[in-house]
């Protein structure tokens, strides 16, 4: 434990460099920001954003000139300066850049004080954090069910999947029947003790969302994520007021202001801020506090690396209304090798409190530097199409 005198001395820090690292990760690029200080302490944060790698790296570079020379422990102040002085505020690109830098600053503060970040957020409010697997894969209903079985056998107690692809504005009988068939196969395969989360990925119209929820309700769905696109919280409120499956949303909402109307309208039962996009750890903590007032839970979005997972877990341990944490289970081996230790979890999908200072993430910098030399896909973005060749929302 750091004593008082050295604690204060340790806080006499200045940022010397802000370095974005882009690491090809198959599905998307991993964007890691590294904030270095004059005391040798450095912090890391994640800003991965599908299809917008260059923009996020550019946004990080836009603020690095400001950050160099600053005291890294004035975390809220730097957030305010970067976000509010920009005049053109927010959005997912700047949101992701600022989020990653904010995570890195908490990492620095935690390391400087010798404690995990949750100790700086009011301390630990739970003994373990529950994860759910973002994982079942497969092209056919049978493949997906088999993938679910493997995941449950590996020890997971909750998993999330999207049981449909493009769906017309009014859901067709074909899409509704196929979605039901998929869920029936999965329930038959894994039983009823596993929590199944459905991600609609914003693919449904309000009408189709209500149709789909009614069709799938009998399969005991844990929550129904992003049933409609995030642009109109009133549409989501209409869906939430009609269906009986709890509604979750938030990965495409940014800053506390983005979440305000969803809460005011009672449009969701669970909020899913992403610490890599919403503005960072403290911003997510504010969103969680607002959610607490409406008796709404928090399930941080995180289909990204173990770095964002650890940043999220720090928040989860400090947040009373935390529900469950998303975790991507199939990172490519070359991404796992970027970390000095594998991410460890216990059967059932539980994580124990981290004890290492800061975010508790150690990168293998030799592996990072080697991986960084590899070309990455600049504009990767999966796409969905309707049967008539028109654009569908992925």
């Amino acid at each position: 434990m750091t004593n008082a005198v050295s604690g204060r001395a340790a806080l006499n820090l200045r940022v010397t460099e802000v370095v974005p690292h882009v690491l090809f990760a198959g599905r998307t690029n991993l964007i890691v920001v590294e904030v270095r200080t004059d005391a040798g302490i450095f912090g890391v944060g994640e800003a991965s954003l599908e299809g917008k790698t260059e923009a996020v790296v550019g946004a990080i570079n836009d603020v690095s000139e400001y950050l160099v020379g600053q005291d890294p422990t004035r975390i809220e102040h730097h957030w305010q300066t970067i976000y509010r002085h920009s005049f053109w505020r927010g959005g997912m690109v700047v949101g992701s850049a600022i989020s990653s830098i904010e995570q890195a600053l908490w990492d620095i503060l935690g390391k400087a004080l010798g404690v995990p970040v949750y100790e700086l957020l009011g301390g630990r409010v739970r003994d373990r954090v529950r994860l759910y697997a973002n994982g079942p894969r497969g092209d056919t209903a049978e493949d997906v069910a088999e993938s679910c079985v493997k995941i449950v056998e590996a020890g997971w107690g909750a998993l999330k999947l999207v049981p449909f692809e493009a769906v017309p504005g009014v859901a067709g009988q074909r899409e509704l029947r196929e979605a039901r068939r998929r869920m029936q196969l999965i329930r038959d395969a894994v039983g009823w003790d596993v929590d199944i989360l459905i991600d609609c990925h914003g693919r449904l119209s309000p009408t189709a969302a209500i149709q789909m929820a009614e069709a799938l309700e009998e399969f005991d769905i844990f929550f129904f994520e992003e049933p409609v696109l995030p642009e109109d919280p009133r549409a989501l409120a209409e869906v939430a007021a009609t269906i009986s499956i709890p509604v979750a949303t938030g990965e495409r909402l940014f800053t506390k202001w983005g979440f305000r109307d969803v809460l005011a309208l009672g449009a969701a039962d669970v909020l899913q801020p992403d610490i890599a996009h919403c503005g960072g750890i403290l911003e997510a903590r504010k969103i969680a506090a607002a959610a607490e007032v409406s008796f709404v839970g928090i399930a941080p979005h995180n289909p990204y690396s173990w770095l964002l997972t650890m940043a999220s877990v720090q928040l989860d341990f400090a947040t009373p209304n935390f529900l469950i944490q998303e975790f991507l289970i199939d990172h490519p081996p070359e991404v796992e090798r970027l970390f000095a230790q594998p991410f460890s979890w216990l059967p059932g999908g539980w994580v124990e409190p981290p004890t290492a200072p800061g975010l508790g993430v150690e990168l293998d910098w030799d592996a990072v530097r080697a991986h960084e030399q590899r070309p990455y896909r600049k504009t990767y973005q999966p796409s969905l199409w309707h049967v008539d060749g028109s654009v569908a929302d992925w």
Partner: protein
Amino acid sequence: MATSRKIAGVRTLAVGAGWRNYIFVLIETDDGLTGLGEASLGGQTNAVLGVVKDLEPLLLGAEAGRIEHLWQQAYRHAFWHGGPTFLSALAGVEVALWDIQGQALGVPIHRLLGGPVRERIRAYANGPRGDTPEEMARSAVDLVARGYSALKMAPWEAMPILAGRGRIEDGVAKVRAVREAVGPEIELMVDAHGRLSPPVAVRAAEMLAPLGITFLEEPCLPGNARALARIARKSPVPVAVGERHYTRWAFDELLASRTINVLQPDIIQSGGLAEARKIAALAEMHFVSVAPHNPWSWVNTMASLHLDATLPNFLMQEVIADPEPWKDAIVINPPVMDDEGFFAVPTAPGLGISLDLEAATRFPPVEGRPPALWHEDGSVADW
């Protein structure tokens, strides 16, 4: 290297402070740290001390660094949630735990809340006093000479449910005298202390508006957000409220009315430092400012300064400006206001203030009741 530091002792101390007492909570850890928090609540000393006693079994042996977790257990496991008595005691405990955590890590508390977003903190005086416009003006001039750039006064006493302009003017005249005495640049705030009915409050706000009033505080009693919203919508003076709202749930309802301009949570009565931080975050969502309430000792002032340092939407910090002998005497290292009316961001580890326990014995607790106001017919008026 998560902290492992257990709570080994919980003590309380009541210190006489005029008609009321300051109430302090001192928490000791098994490795020799002592944290200090304030739990003052006028007229309810025994009840607050009783709550701290009730919390002792939860606290003793608990990990001192798990501040939010202990708050959650104290508040939510209680089943009978909240209220000013309970929350004041809980806040005293909670601030003492932040003090310990800051000391343990060697940093001021604000560093654990995202760090300072400002370099100095503007104070306002809960201050000009006087029964006549002349007295009030003299008192205001004294305060300005001491450096204050913002002053708050409570110009009305008991007020009937409906009152004509003449009756309201009794109070407005005091404010006018102050404005004329201090000039146009000093910020003036008016505290109605919940003494006005909605129609009287609206008329009072209209009469005050030409005097350039920064905010009108508690125009009516708390407890009816719709009545307050009705006043705020019509008031040409921004409306502030919050000292008698407890926890974020109460403030959420105020914000939902979209008419309140300034929130005034008190770290003590709202439930603690983290609770006030959450309330301020809600306010930030609605572009509403925060001016923490604080008519208490230097201990809650210090806690407030840590909070203020971190709030993007902070406006001004209340401090009692009356020369009270006990106020300075009982503490070591009270914050010092500069001659422009600002406090510095605290720099010492933890809360950065401690009690002079020996000096405190010179001010024994009183069996005080709040001052009583009466209507002309002998019925009870709200103080």
